[in-house]
């Protein structure tokens, strides 16, 4: 059973075709990495799937439901949560408030203008669980803009996790992190994925992270999928070698 299926997904920006006829199938519980050089269309693919902007053409199905052209706030309700390439937080709110707002979105009564203390309590409880998973509990009451860059990246993942998504989309989770930070992020992510229920799509530049986490890899190049397979296949693929000259060996 495929949890996510993209059919001929295409996105134009004016004359530029950022995505061309992308077909992608992701199985339930799979960890999929999407790799490719800068400007290959990785973030565009993310944005088109989760509704930051509508795709020009093509379709997207999630759990068998057509989610093409839906707004991003509605897509969350189906069980897709994501992080952004550039850190995207509520800067002056505390860490726990950041996550609570995220987890609250999936609760009944998230909009209640009066009362609703049980909703808030539940949101906070879920936030605490997410904090534990990402080992951020000590930072819970600090304003998020005082955190280190690495912790801010983790906080964003915690926000997404707290929504109990079926599909988690991570846009370069280790971007701008030091070697140590990257290693600890990978460890935390591995821990998170060990249950095997969560499906993950991951955009990542660091090939070590990719081969560490991913079960399957899709390679994007100039808006097209040029290869798709398990890590060994992709490593060996001639097309990928040509498009992505020496990228793997360097990393």
């Amino acid at each position, binding site marked *: 059973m495929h949890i996510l299926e993209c059919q001929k997904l295409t996105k134009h920006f004016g004359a530029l075709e950022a995505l061309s006829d992308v077909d992608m199938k992701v199985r339930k519980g799979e960890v999929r990495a999407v790799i490719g050089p800068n400007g290959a269309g990785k973030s565009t693919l993310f944005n088109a799937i989760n509704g930051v902007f509508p795709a020009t053409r093509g379709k997207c199905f999630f759990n068998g439901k057509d989610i093409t052209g839906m707004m991003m*706030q509605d897509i969350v309700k189906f069980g897709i949560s994501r992080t952004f390439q550039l850190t995207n937080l509520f800067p002056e709110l505390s860490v726990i408030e950041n996550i609570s*707002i995220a987890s*609250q*979105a999936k609760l009944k009564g*998230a909009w209640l*203008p009066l009362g*609703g203390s049980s909703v*808030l309590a539940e949101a906070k409880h879920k936030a605490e669980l997410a904090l534990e998973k990402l080992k951020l509990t000590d930072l819970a*009451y600090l*304003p998020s803009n005082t955190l280190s860059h690495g912790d801010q990246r983790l906080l964003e993942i915690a926000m997404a996790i707290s929504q109990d998504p079926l599909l988690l989309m991570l846009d370069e989770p280790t971007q701008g992190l030091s070697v140590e930070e990257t290693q600890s992020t990978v460890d935390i992510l591995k821990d998170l994925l060990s249950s095997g229920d969560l499906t993950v799509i991951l955009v990542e530049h660091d090939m070590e992270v990719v081969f560490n986490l991913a079960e399957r890899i899709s390679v994007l190049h100039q808006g097209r999928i040029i290869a798709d397979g398990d890590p060994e296949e992709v490593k060996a693929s001639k097309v990928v070698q040509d498009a992505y000259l020496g990228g793997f060996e360097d990393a």
Partner: protein
Amino acid sequence: MRFWLLLGTAILFSICIPFMVPYYAMTIVIAALIWGLFAMSLDLLVGYTRLYSFGHVASYGLGAYSSALLILHFDIPVPITIFLATGIATLIAVPITWICTRTHGVSFAMLTLAFAQLGYAMLFRFKEFTGGSNGLPGITRPAGPFGLDFFQSKIGYYYMVLAFLIASFLICRNIVNSPFGKVLSGIRENEMKTQALGYNVRNYKWFVAIMSYMFGSLSGALFTPYAGFASPELFFWLISGTVLIMVIVGGSGTLIGPIIGGIFFILLEHELSEITQLWPLAFGTVFIMFVLFFPQGIWGIFTTISKKSKSNPSESGHAHS
């Protein structure tokens, strides 16, 4: 606990005011409370959602004219008039705020201003209805319900305004601490992220704008039976700026701050404008100083200081840059 103690003291103090100040001074005290309520209503938008409305006068003016017209034409008991007028003004605000909250930032400010000006212009268009530039004089405070004439007296009206202010404050406080209020703080900090987390941001902005207009209309509706008239000045755009000053100087995002800002602004204006011509000059300068150096406002400064002295490091992290 501390909060309820403070609130109780404040209420008790307010109840005693008519016995402490001369009768004629009650006029200005009532006006101060009405403006406190008006400023608090704007705080829902400015302080909690960071939507800068420059047309908040529209809510005030709509409320004021609604209650004036209801009293002139139907002579309904004054407390009921206030509820009805607030309801009518809020209904008018529903489509207007829908359009305004499609935008953000500067466009929102300009759009709200435009609607307020449109309302102002309409006062002159429908002269036979609104009295044009003469306004509507001779507004009374009809007695009732149940033959009650308590609210007709100045002191009685004071207590009614006080009751409305306290009730509104408690409702607004509940709103900003509710799940809905948490989403507002998300929109204030990062609108796009809030949307990405699964909230229909437009609707949240729309609803908070309606609520803000509702409490603004309430303050306007309270004004006319107290003042005895409605006039186009109640709809003039400079009032939107004045009430924004009250919110910022009082402390946006605190509810209490704007109430205090509104009350003290009116009291000070009354006291100082008789002594010196420099009053508007002074408050303009004070306002700019607050925007530049103390964006957290008077109440914000006060709570930061009291928090620091409480020596609770885990919660004292709310610093403005």
